[in-house]
């Protein structure tokens, strides 16, 4: 295959304890560490491995986000992507709009495969992969934990509630990466230097013809209800007593 396109979203780092703004308008992101969505890192790693096996020619990283998302794309380039595209917008796009933007890039680049993370750890929506596959009218394989390319098709193992499901899809297709697909590589310093010279194209959202207008109106963002304070027991006997009192054993 010639090309693999990978989605790379800039998100609040997974180690950050996210706080809700007091006025309920969203979460605090000023001065907060931002990273590549961990699932997108897995998606990218998989694309790189497919390329390194000689089964793909080029890996292109695409991000839809603010100008600063160039940092995450540079990380993707340092990991090994050949080039990157940023579709720039300061609006927060819903997954449907993000899928439409990706479709615009797909129509320009004609990849044989698109891999994205199964969800982004900010909105946790898990919609982009199936939405892109629907708009593109191509197969989808969500929650992938194993991918085997066989010429014009692929055999994919998916993590489903019952266990593992295997499906076969014709390419081109859209895959979404689950945690156990692989373990992403660490970026080394020389790779970061090399990444600075790789091409990173920036285009405005307007150039894709996609509207950023949200379809859903966010009314309020609030912290979750705190759990009431618990007790500490000193041994198993006390634990069993406490459970008996609650009628749980």
């Amino acid at each position: 295959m010639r090309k693999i396109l990978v989605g790379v979203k800039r998100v609040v780092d997974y180690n950050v304890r996210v706080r809700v703004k007091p006025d309920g308008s969203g979460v605090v992101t000023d001065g907060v560490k931002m990273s590549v969505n961990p699932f997108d890192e897995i998606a990218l790693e998989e694309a790189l491995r497919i390329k390194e096996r000689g089964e793909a020619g080029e890996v292109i990283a695409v991000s839809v986000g603010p100008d600063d998302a160039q940092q995450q794309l540079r990380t993707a380039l340092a990991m090994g992507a050949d080039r990157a595209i940023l579709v720039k917008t300061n609006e927060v796009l819903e997954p449907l709009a993000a899928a439409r933007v990706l479709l615009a890039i797909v129509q320009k680049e004609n990849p044989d495969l698109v891999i994205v993370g199964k969800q982004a750890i900010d909105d946790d929506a898990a919609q982009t992969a199936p939405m892109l596959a629907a708009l593109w009218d191509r197969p989808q394989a969500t929650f992938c934990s194993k991918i085997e390319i066989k010429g014009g098709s692929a055999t994919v193992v998916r993590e489903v509630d019952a266990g593992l499901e295997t499906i076969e899809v014709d390419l081109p297709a859209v895959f979404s990466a689950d945690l156990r697909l692989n373990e992403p590589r660490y970026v080394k310093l020389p790779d970061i230097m090399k990444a600075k010279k790789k091409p990173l194209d920036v285009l405005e959202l307007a150039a894709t013809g996609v509207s950023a207008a949200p379809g859903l109106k966010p009314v309020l963002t609030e912290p979750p209800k705190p759990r009431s304070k618990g007790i500490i027991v000193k041994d198993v006997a006390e634990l069993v007593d406490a459970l008996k009192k609650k009628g749980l054993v």
Partner: protein
Amino acid sequence: MSKILVIAEHDGQKLNQATARCVSCARQVPDAAITVAVLAADPAAVAAQAAQLAGVTEVVTVAAAHNAHALAAVLAPQVVKLAAGYTHVLAASTAFGKDLLPRVAALLGVPQISDAMAVVGAYTFKRPTYAGNAIVTLEAPADKVLVATVRSASFEAAPGGGSAPVRAVAIEASVPAHTRFVSVSAATSDRPDLASAAKVVSGGRALGSKENFELVFRLAEKMGAAVGASRAAVDAGYAPNELQVGQTGKIIAPELYLAFGISGAIQHLTGIKDAKTIVAVNKDAEAPIFEVADIGLVADLFQVIPELEKALAK
């Protein structure tokens, strides 16, 4: 009035309990008529179960050989056809629903609300973001069909006792041949199902090996509980992937959750926030799991589990 279409999840024989929870969510929408759609090779048995759910107005069935396995690319165009005339399309936020509904929403050209956890109004739902650390209330436009997946842990299963009529419908939708089912390795066990169990015994990295993890399985068996695991335990191969609890595993709401040697990372906690009682056993008194535990015991799990087994046998 709202007309809600709930897409049934099943394995060909049994209706998944997540669908009954989804029906409960639908019942909270004011003034709603609820239709459950069963797409299957032979929908009769599943349709009969759906018809018994309290609050269901009607069950529609689509029998077709290509519906033998739940492939989103095959089901989505059929669901789009079925959705005509409905105000809402809902499915449980399980691997099934998460795979299918965004494809349906995109074909309909509407946004989706993922993981609806509370109904505020007919078109206004709450959902968790940032691993459950920020709850967002979203309002969808009333002039479009609202597509949403429903967070099972937030709703009790709808009780039985109903007797809705079942109606077979034929759908003319071209289904693609580009996606083919090969196999599923369903781990068959007599243990209660993790997603719906009243009690769950869960183990983390501290178990240290697959052999040691047997301690968790044994205690669970004694207690009639399901088994869960942290990501670290699954990644290390101590427990199979379908037992992972958390942001990227199963979100559960048992009466009792017993966590052994689990530190309590936010990604894990988001999966157990709705448990009624959380018990944590960890030898580190500073472990974050104690911040959410109703009952905490600072101790070595390798001593606690055998003692607990003995105490419970009495």
